[in-house]
């Protein structure tokens, strides 16, 4: 079991560019979660899917952020027109119940 896989581990973008982050959940897990972590705001819930369907996106910024789960083996978080304030570690987690298992995160730096 490779655990939750996130790619890339680090991404640097220029202001205004697009960033796509990938997450491969643990095989057999039905739920996928996305979080954003910064020093100032701490760990923030963004969105989650269950059986590929979006369930709760209450934490997603209304503009520029979108998430998809086209199949059970991966989910993507896309940020359009990235801004310096989007710089953070983006964490993906998967679960088959209440316990969540986290990936190592993608560190996004927007210059």
């Amino acid at each position: 079991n490779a655990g939750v896989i996130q790619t890339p581990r680090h991404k640097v973008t220029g202001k205004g560019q697009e960033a796509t982050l990938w997450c491969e959940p643990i095989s057999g897990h039905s739920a996928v979660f996305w979080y954003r972590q910064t020093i100032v705001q701490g760990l923030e819930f963004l969105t989650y899917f269950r059986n590929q369907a979006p369930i709760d996106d209450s934490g997603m910024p209304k503009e520029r952020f979108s998430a998809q789960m086209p199949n059970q083996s991966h989910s993507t978080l896309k940020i359009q027109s990235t801004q310096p304030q989007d710089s953070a570690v983006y964490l993906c987690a998967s679960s088959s119940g209440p316990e969540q298992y986290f990936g190592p995160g993608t560190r996004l730096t927007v210059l």
Partner: protein
Amino acid sequence: AQSVTQPDARVTVSEGASLQLRCKYSYSGTPYLFWYVQYQRQGLQLLLKYYSGDPVVQGVNGFEAEFSKSDSSFHLRKASVHWSDSAVYFCAASRTGGYKVVFGSGTRLLVSP
């Protein structure tokens, strides 16, 4: 609203000393409760969980936590800390049978030599 509060942002203890990290929750009913640990530049790892039954639950690396319904608390304890326990610890809760987890703000633990 459902919430998890970790009142201590930072805790420093000497190696070999005992440890308690505090966690209070606000949930209707009895939630599922968790402690996660995050080492430098890594994701969160599950330390232990409480669903029901014995209020004292054992986790990995000698950690344990005690659930108190009367106090709405789920404090984490360790009898003797090691320098490698230095990390950020998150308390979390979810409603019974739920998937979405609410995390506390985290407590940064520094173990001094």
